[in-house]
């Protein structure tokens, strides 16, 4: 009961202070002066929830290890949220912060399986294991999670009756989990089997820092609800250090090679969802 009362009071407080600008009005009312007053000096916020469909591209050359490290070729489904705070001209200028959670992860094992023959033509992949529990030193890692994108910046919105064109730009971080992967290879023309392992050495999660830009079209049903469609662009730069270990299962001989892998990933996302105006 107390909880309900608290939520009611909180919502009432938020709504009473929101002072929504009449951004979809016809500009013909008698209270133009008054509206202009709070259009200039009041604020309004919006909260978007939506679904996104992402296609990613990379600067990395295709093959081992970029197929393992990036693993982004297949489209991703994302859940998206976005908060905007209009601070001037009735939402013309605003600041924003948003995020996307990738709810479908590309099958990196299959991508690595396809890429290995290009680099190791004398071997056939017999088995793939994705070992996310340990790094090359045997330390326990927890990389069993979805990639996440965070972004923030500023934007400008052009309002026209019930529609608005919303443009924004800013910075972004896309966190990608790193997984240890082991492939069992059979050497052609011999009875020898080998293990090829990849370990990313920096962290269980790689954070790529970059830029973000988006264009949205909004439609307002009323002062409180609307819908939007948006196109997003994200470019994130990564600096990976990883170990490639090749192990002969019969002789026990192993060799390790350490690589630095720098490049960027581009994410193109189309989003759609609902907006709540606070």
């Amino acid at each position: 009961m107390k909880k309900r009362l608290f939520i009611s009071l909180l919502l009432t407080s938020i709504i009473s202070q929101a002072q929504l600008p009449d951004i979809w009005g016809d500009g013909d009312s008698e209270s133009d002066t008054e509206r202009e007053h709070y259009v200039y000096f009041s604020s309004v916020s919006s909260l978007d929830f939506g679904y996104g469909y992402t296609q990613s591209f990379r600067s990395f050359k295709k093959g081992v290890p970029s197929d393992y490290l990036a693993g982004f070729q297949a489209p991703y489904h994302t859940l998206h949220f976005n908060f905007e705070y209009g601070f001037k001209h009735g939402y013309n200028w605003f600041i924003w912060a948003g995020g996307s959670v990738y709810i479908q992860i590309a099958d990196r094992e299959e991508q690595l399986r396809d890429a290995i023959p290009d680099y190791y033509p004398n071997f056939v992949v017999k088995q793939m294991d994705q070992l996310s529990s340990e790094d090359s030193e045997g330390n326990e890692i927890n990389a069993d999670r979805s990639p996440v994108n965070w972004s923030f910046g500023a934007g400008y919105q052009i309002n026209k009756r019930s529609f608005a064109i919303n443009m924004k730009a800013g910075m972004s971080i896309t966190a990608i989990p790193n997984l240890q992967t082991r492939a069992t290879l059979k050497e052609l023309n011999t009875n020898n089997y080998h293990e090829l392992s990849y370990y990313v050495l920096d962290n269980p999660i790689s954070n790529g820092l970059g830029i973000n830009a988006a264009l949205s079209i909004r439609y307002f049903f009323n002062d409180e609800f609307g819908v939007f469609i948006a196109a997003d662009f994200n470019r994130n730069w990564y600096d990976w250090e990883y170990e490639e270990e090749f192990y002969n299962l019969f002789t026990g001989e192993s060799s390790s090679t350490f690589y630095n892998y720098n490049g960027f990933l581009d994410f193109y996302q189309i989003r759609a969802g609902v907006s709540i105006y606070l």
Partner: protein
Amino acid sequence: MRLKTALLAIFLLSLADLVLYGCYCDCDFAPTGTFEICSIDLLSIDNAGGSPATASDTVLADAYAIEITLNITQEDICSHSFLMNSAFAASCNCPDAFFENRNPVTEVHIYTVNDFSTTYDAGDEVTSLFYRYLGHEYEPINSFLRPQNAASVTPIKVRALLMEAPAIKGNHSFEVELIMQDSTVVSATTSSIYLK
């Protein structure tokens, strides 16, 4: 109150189920039957590709293998049927039915019929050159040719990989010999294959 009664009822039912199963569960830990190795068949394998294939007349020496088939036979089957055994196993988590080797293999030998290298002449034992690959490791072959138990009385196949190529190229064949506890000897020889 109702919740407590329901939980108590579930607990008592679970307990009764456990007790009843405990009473009627009659696991048989004895072997279902026994078996004996009657003969062995050998097949030369070409393992040069991604998967093993039956060898023709020439094989790369580094990719040669022998598929050893142990033909086993059963005798003295228990009085209860397989069906009864499996039914008990399902309800009581009893061990699966198994057959015990009544005449265990005591010695395993693989001999080269031809001169193999400067170390191994014709007739020498080369068992230590053959291994079995098991997922992520190799194991010496002789341990796999001494089955103590078997899940069913069907032929047992073991693929023996030759892990050291012969220094002397040419036609090669190998004799596999198993000596049983009662001194019975079972042996077979591969067909002659050109190892290049």
